[in-house]
């Protein structure tokens, strides 16, 4: 997955502060967490940075598929094993008779379900990573055998 350093290296690194941050590194972190967009950096649209801009667009393209919590699902890698569905602490709390004991989810409040052989994210607002007071829980990504899900 993309790192803030990779984004920083493609930014102008001029510390112009036009984006509202004190440094380009801070902007790189904001771009990664999708709080800012490339358009917020006017210097980047200078023709001399055209190459870097194109590379940045390419680098940040996968982030557009991410949910509000930053979850990205790679359908082609998913086994549909449901490890993430059963391991997710919110699924366990909201669905004690279904996904908590290894069965298919029986509650509407679960975050992850398996549909058509691959994992789907249904209620991202229930996730511990949602909102400003998020907890960096990684139960779903840590239990994935094929790295089919990841957070940005």
């Amino acid at each position, binding site marked *: 997955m993309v790192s803030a350093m990779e984004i920083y290296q493609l930014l102008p690194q001029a510390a112009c502060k036009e984006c509202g941050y004190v440094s380009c590194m801070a902007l790189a972190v904001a771009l990664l967490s999708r709080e800012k967009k490339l358009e917020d950096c006017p210097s980047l649209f200078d023709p001399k940075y055209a190459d870097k801009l194109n590379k940045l667009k390419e680098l940040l393209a996968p982030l557009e598929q991410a949910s509000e919590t930053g979850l990205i699902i790679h359908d082609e890698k*998913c*086994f*549909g*094993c*449901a*490890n993430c*569905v*059963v*391991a997710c602490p919110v699924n*366990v709390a909201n669905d*004690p008779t279904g996904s*908590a*004991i*290894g*069965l*298919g*989810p029986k509650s509407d409040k679960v975050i992850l*379900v*398996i*549909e*058509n*052989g*691959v994992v789907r994210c249904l209620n991202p607002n229930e996730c511990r990573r949602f909102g400003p007071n998020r907890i960096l829980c990684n139960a779903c990504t840590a*239990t994935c*055998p*094929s790295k089919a899900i990841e957070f940005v």
Partner: protein
Amino acid sequence: MAVCTGCSLLCEDIEVALKTGAIEKAKNLCRKGQGHFQALFSDRTVPSVEGGETSLDQAIEKAANILMNAKDPLLYGWSNSSLEAQKVGIELAKKLEAKIDDTSSFCQGQLLERVLKGELPSCTLDDVRNFADVSVFWGADPSNSHPRHLSRFSYYPRGSKRQKGYEEERNCVVIDVRKSSTAKLCSDYFRIPPGGDAEFAEAIIAILDGKMPRFGDKKRMIGLASIFKKADFGAIFPGLGLVYSLVQKMEIFENLVARLNDVSNYKVVPMVGHYNMRGFNELMLDETGYINQISFKNGVHHGSENSVTMAAKSSDACLVVGSDPLSALPFVIARSLAKSQLVVIDPRRSLTTDAAKVVIPSAMSGLESGGKAVRMDGVRISFEPIFESNLLSDEEILTRIMEAI
């Protein structure tokens, strides 16, 4: 709710929404199960005799003729059929005085025979979910072979006595020749050289006996033995890697399990692949006292000469039910089978149906026909058809062949 017959976990919580000629949405199906369900809509077989399309009645008549006139027929497959079809198959073998064998003779047969005869202690997968605190996958990679094994039973779910689940109360140990998908998830992974399973087992026995191990990293091996000793309830899931490595030295594994049961409580659940292989083995054990490799010629005879790998060379006709031995078996055996008069009952096209004299299409069990099957841990599961179909089930086809004979 439907039952998935894609592997021997027989998941019962599948929800499928259908539209004409396709699956609109399937819930809780793993990738493998999804493929199994989608297979319904491609490469289906049609009744044929010697490559030419014919009617079902003619195909069944021809099949009966071939089997009736054969001097030494072999009936093979069975692991992908319901218990009802397997029962009729065994009756057919008796009537024809034929050899009968299934995929277990080169799969988990050795271990399953010991489990079914009570020589190895076993338990259900529900016991594993509720009580087990150590799960050992030995020469098995359930993430790929049985994708929902870890999430439904062996590692991630909360059980009645294991409420804290994998975070605190369960250990997963993988012993394998490569870092498999399951090994990446487990708490302890032990890499062994190919064929090193016997030495590994002996090393664990030595530590349990208070001796130093002569295999692998001593510190890690002693750590593993200590995990084994501290466990309240351990479940060992041996895969084909262990079976093929030990071959004739299976008593070493038996000794290890016996020794582990001296210090704690350990059960063995073989990682059966096909959805009803264990069902066939249980039926055969009740009927004959052996789980496979039987000849009904002049009584009941058991021996490796009746296994598909040996009988393929001597049999003049072979009935294959729900299996593709020409793809799965070594070339020399596959060639012998292809040269014999092959009758295949299969819902889908395969290399074996392409080489067959007679092909009889059947309904896919679990999807187009109902029945009962035995899960890998011995629990019997009933299933109903979820798709309407005019095709005959394996059981009906075999009954008609028997009537024709």
